[in-house]
């Protein structure tokens, strides 16, 4: 109020996000994971401009080329114009990996965010509002008890054609797969979040917020959600992995994207029957999937630590 208190009042407060970044940097795995994720994202996004080979183009004369690192040391058919080789129809594997990566990453991230949103929403509502708890959790049990793949298959059969007609073949199937995976994988997140909310709801700081007169809406966003960040983050990283893998399984069953539309999962499954003669066709998409999942896991781990003020040591 007075001059003196005002001059005292201006104490420079460092932005909290710098502290979060500092803590994040100390987690070696998270930094490496982050770097790899940026690399692979750039690979699939910028890749098509640098490597301008049509992934769909059939080139029967150049089929079954081996990658350069085998060709350099052994007497096999290979070419510098196809550094990672070609498949049994002569399609370039590098171009396929790039294009498939776009689809796989898009499906993975979107489905993960959707299932995380649903899971957190249902978990928070069930945990916070006692009246909704019973019905929402029985609903969760119900969805959990349904076998995942048959449900997805039925969904594909029912909705594929209308969605294709409405949004075009690619976008339609994308929406279908993403929502299919999203609405069949939120249950574990919901259960974990509900359990944590139930525990945190009984802590005294929530009572303190009630005594201040904080309405339930802001109670959830200000007090409950920040305190259930860690389990949400963990299920997010697991969710991304399982979304990519479920999409692969669907493609494998022939119910995902059309056959001329590569994804990491589909490249992998297409090559399984000739794995012994052409191991590179399995290794590369497999590496892409597992390294992406692993790096997201590490980033989640690092973020969880960095966002916790107790671990940050402030």
């Amino acid at each position, binding site marked *: *109020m007075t001059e003196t*208190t*005002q001059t*005292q*009042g201006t*104490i420079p*407060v*460092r932005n*909290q996000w710098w502290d979060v970044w500092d803590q994040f940097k100390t987690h070696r795995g998270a930094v490496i994971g982050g770097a790899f994720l940026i690399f692979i994202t750039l690979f699939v996004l910028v890749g098509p401009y640098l490597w301008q080979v049509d992934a769909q183009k059939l080139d029967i004369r150049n089929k079954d080329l081996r990658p350069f690192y085998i060709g350099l040391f052994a007497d096999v058919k290979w070419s510098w114009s196809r550094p990672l080789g070609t498949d049994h129809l002569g399609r370039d594997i590098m171009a396929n990996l790039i294009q498939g990566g776009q689809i796989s990453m898009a499906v993975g991230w979107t489905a993960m965010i959707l299932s995380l949103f649903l899971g957190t929403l249902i978990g928070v509502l069930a945990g916070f509002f006692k009246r909704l708890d019973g019905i929402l959790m029985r609903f969760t049990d119900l969805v959990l008890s349904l076998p995942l793949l048959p449900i997805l298959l039925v969904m594909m059969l029912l909705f594929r054609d209308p969605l294709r007609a409405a949004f075009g073949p690619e976008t339609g199937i994308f929406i279908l797969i993403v929502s299919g995976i999203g609405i069949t994988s939120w249950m574990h997140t919901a259960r974990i979040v509900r359990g944590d909310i139930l525990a945190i709801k009984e*802590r*005294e*700081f929530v*009572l*303190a*917020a*009630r*005594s*201040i*007169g*904080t*309405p339930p809406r*802001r109670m959830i966003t*200000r*007090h409950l959600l*920040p*305190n259930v*960040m860690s389990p949400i983050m963990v299920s997010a990283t697991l969710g991304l992995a399982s979304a990519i893998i479920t999409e692969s399984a669907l493609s494998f069953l022939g119910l995902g994207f059309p056959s001329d539309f590569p994804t990491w999962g589909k490249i992998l499954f297409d090559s399984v029957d000739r794995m012994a003669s052409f191991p590179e066709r399995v290794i590369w998409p497999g590496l892409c999937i597992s390294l992406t999942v692993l790096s997201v896991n590490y980033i989640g781990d690092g973020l969880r630590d960095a966002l916790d*003020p*107790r671990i940050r040591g*402030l």
Partner: protein
Amino acid sequence: MLDAAPSKKPLVEVRNLKMHFPIYAGLLRRRVGEVKAVDGVSFDVFEGETLGLVGESGCGKSTCGRALLRLYEVTDGSITIDGVDIAALSNNALREKRPTMQMVFQDPQASLNPRMTVQAIIQEPLDEHTTLSTKEKQQKVYELMDAVGLNRRFAGRYPHAFSGGQRQRIGIARALALNPKFIVCDEPIAALDVSIQAQVVNLLEDLQEQFGLTYLFISHDLSMVRHIATRVAVMYLGKIVELAPREALYAAPLHPYTEALLSAVPEPDPSLEAKVERIILQGDVPSPANPPKGCNFCTRCPKVMDICREVEPATREVRPGHFAACHLHEITSQTAGATAAQREANERQHGE
């Protein structure tokens, strides 16, 4: 002795407050009974005073304090704070009323959100109830931190970085943010060690003087209550058994339970300590789900009479400003003054 000037106007009037928690059991989760945590409590808190609320663990002190701010939906009774019946208000009206009454919690560790900075914690009431700008809020937070003796530079830190006493100061600053009239202190010192207890209690006293606050001070520490309270209410099993000005209560307790409670206070002088006659109560506190018929204390009372097991004693004003709920003082109403005087004399002898 009679310092509870009856001319003062009561800020808080509690009448027949009941807080029962239902018990569900069996396969169908049917309601089979209720825990009578607070069972018909009536008292006034006058403006500017500190009412101490004492009793053993589980007697309903904290529940009573929380029900007073309607952190629980009360079963029955009325709570009038500053002329408004809190127990009957709608949620929106209650929210408007929240700034007049605040609470300081027992566990300073649990009552602060570990994910919020001190600044955000103290600012929360301002966010909810005022339309100040960010800068004004910041300034107000700094002033509050000054008032409770926290360094302004700590505003950006998180609660885990503070000691218990400092955390309790943060809790007090948060309670003060909206300039309340009435603060319920729910065992604010129970989780602190002795030297810090003194600091926090002195801080509470200073703030009371500075801001003209009214406290309900819940505690089981009788000597601390003696230090801070102007009047003291003693609770046993959900009921107030005795309510009196501090000096009167400590000098001449009327209820046998209060006598037993006061005799348990440790005497610092070892030579006197040996002479202190302790009244040791037999047995345990009955379950609040199934309180005894008649007087709640009849199962353990050393002076129990037949009537105690049958009829619930009414609270009566045995002496001016000194209320007790005991049949002992009903029957011997004529001789009550004499016995009390005698007891007071005994007490003095013990004291010397």
